[in-house]
């Protein structure tokens, strides 16, 4: 039970912690929006517990998969929108009215994606805790496993958070945008298997097999999967969706910057930002 709980954390909670670190390296930590989104996500997954059995039987047994895929799509779209607003917000003078307005919008979108991500990943935990807590000796093992799993996830997210701050300083905010887009695309491409398993999409062949290097079951594979959607043997569908999901928003940001008055950072704004960072 202890090991199961730790593994459950590594598999299901790590993507949430990765997203949280990436978002916090992009936005100033606000207690209000962060706690509200965490509460909303938790409440959502607990409420779903009541209906999950019925939901899983809907649409010839595909109800749960379709809901989860929709949530992954929503998180992806929210991340793409957040990354764009973040790039725009950086063009404004810090503490100006426009900058504050964009930060508020950004916090709203970030809250939505954190709540949705927690909702997606929290469902599996809620079912596990509710159903196994009553077993003999389970509470002690579950609590210990939770402490260990949470410790691992928190350590990784703190390391990632500071790495992102360092990358932001070295290569600019685009490094955070790239990390966010890679993470979002990876999670979305990974969710394709949900549609395949309920026969809403045909299975396509695996393009290659890296199982002898990093098997999907290994710890590194779990970490890489949470970071950028690693799969030892991705299918055509997964790789296709991954590539499109990565390239389209990056091209979109570039195109918008070229064609619509997407402002280039003025010397005064850049100086003000640099001053603020100091």
């Amino acid at each position, binding site marked *: 039970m202890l090991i*199961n709980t730790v*593994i*459950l954390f590594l598999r299901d909670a790590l993507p949430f912690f990765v997203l949280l670190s990436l978002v916090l390296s992009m936005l100033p930590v606000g207690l209000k929006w962060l706690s509200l989104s965490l509460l909303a996500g938790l409440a959502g997954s607990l409420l779903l517990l009541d209906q*999950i*059995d019925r939901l*899983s*039987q809907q649409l*010839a*047994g595909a109800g*749960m*998969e379709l809901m989860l895929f929709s949530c992954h799509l929503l998180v992806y779209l929210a991340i793409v929108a957040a990354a764009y607003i973040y790039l725009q917000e950086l063009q404004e003078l810090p503490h100006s009215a426009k900058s504050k307005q964009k930060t508020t919008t950004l916090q709203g979108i970030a809250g939505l994606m954190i709540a949705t991500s927690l909702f997606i990943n929290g469902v*599996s935990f809620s*079912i*596990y805790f509710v*159903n*196994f807590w009553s077993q003999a000796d389970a509470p002690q093992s579950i609590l210990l496993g939770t402490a260990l799993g949470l410790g691992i996830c928190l350590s990784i997210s703190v390391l990632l958070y500071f790495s992102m701050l360092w990358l932001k300083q070295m290569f600019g905010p685009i490094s955070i945008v790239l990390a966010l887009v890679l993470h979002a695309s990876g999670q979305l491409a990974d969710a394709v*298997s*949900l549609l*395949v*398993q*309920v*026969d809403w999409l*045909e*299975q396509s062949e695996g393009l290659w097999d890296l199982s002898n290097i990093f*098997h*999907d*079951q290994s710890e590194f594979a779990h970490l890489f999967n949470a970071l950028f959607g690693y*799969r030892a*043997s991705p299918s055509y569908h997964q790789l296709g969706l991954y590539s499109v999901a990565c390239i389209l928003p990056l091209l979109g940001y570039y195109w918008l910057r070229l064609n619509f008055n997407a402002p280039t950072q003025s010397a005064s704004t850049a100086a003000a930002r640099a001053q603020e960072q100091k």
Partner: protein
Amino acid sequence: MLSRYSFIVLLTVLSLNAKAVEEFTIELKQHLFYPSRIEVPANQKVKLIIHNLDEQPEEFDSFDLNREKMIFAGRKAIIFIGPLKPGEYAFFGEYHPNTARGLVVASELKQGEQHVD
């Protein structure tokens, strides 16, 4: 004219999709899969029907098959797998990975033949 062609294309797609898929049933009892080894035909899509006869939910999980599905107590779940290359594909119950373990073996079998251990 376009809509007529679209309709014909849609019907063709639906009829191709409606091709019979072979079904295989697995039961989960006391955190064990029965049968724990199931032979399926290689290179074709098959349908796994998993009945959870336990009083607790279980998550059917397989890294090899890239599948993950919650099965609630007393319920059945349907998972489509394949087309698979000939070989062995392990699966397990995420909540009881030490006991709930099984193997899907994809091999060249005659239609309807099912090997059970």
